[in-house]
């Protein structure tokens, strides 16, 4: 049930999503990845991808134009 952080601040699309996909592969079931992003498009496509593959997703707006996406590996 570990928690990992992935810093994607300052990264433009599609880099945050590719990094998230790679990182999620390494995680064990039950682990959570927190992706930090400030790219408004990644704030939409990262959660969309994660939901599509069936993970639990929550988004938190931590600052103006900065988000943290919580992705729980469920399978």
């Amino acid at each position, binding site marked *: 049930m570990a928690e990992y952080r992935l810093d994607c601040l300052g990264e433009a*699309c*599609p880099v945050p999503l590719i990094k998230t996909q790679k990182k999620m592969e390494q995680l064990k079931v039950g682990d959570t990845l927190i992706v930090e992003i400030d790219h408004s498009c990644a704030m*939409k*496509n990262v959660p969309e991808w994660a*939901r599509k593959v069936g993970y639990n997703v929550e988004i*938190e*707006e931590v600052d103006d134009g900065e988000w943290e996406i919580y992705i729980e590996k469920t399978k």
Partner: protein
Amino acid sequence: MDEVKRPKRKKKNQVPAGIVLLIIVIAVGIVLAGISSMLSIYWIFGISFGFVLQKSRFCFTASLRDPVLTGSTSLTRAVIVALMLATIGFAAVQYSAVSKELPVPGNIAPAGIFTAIGATMFGIGMVIAGGCASGTLMRVGEGFVQQCIALLFFIIGSMWGAHDYGWWADTFFSKAPTIFLPDLLGWAPALFGQLIVLAILFLIAEWYENKKLGSEEE
């Protein structure tokens, strides 16, 4: 859409700045209308395009890149829908112009090897720069320094292209065909044929995503 949780930290509220900007936008529109009504119309169009692109995170680059890179085709399908709707809209405008014996409206240009070369260059460029023409402008507005640099070099590249335009024109453009599909196929086959092709592409995109991301929903 997921519920976006309330922030822990206290954020600054940028809405007042937004309202000030809105007032400036309206003022500029009025000033431009004083010069010519066409200018203010284009201003309104620009503002609307920028607003819609940003709000919907519409990204032509992603629509062409994500199928390869991430397996997602949700934007690809959205672009196909936009193309279908615009095709119908454009066809109505074009048909009414043609029936009044006016020149055909729209963007109809020669096609040839130069289209292939230019489009390939453009495709490579937009993926590595993180935004196409409209996307670069939109992201400059969002505060991306990277896209400000991309815009600067976009202008330099445009100048370079304009400089070499003569050579391309002499070598290729003059001999290349400009084909308006309804002239070639007739109005109904061109319009419905194009819509059917787009619909098939839509279904392929949907099938592809389900295969790639392995989901049964939707």
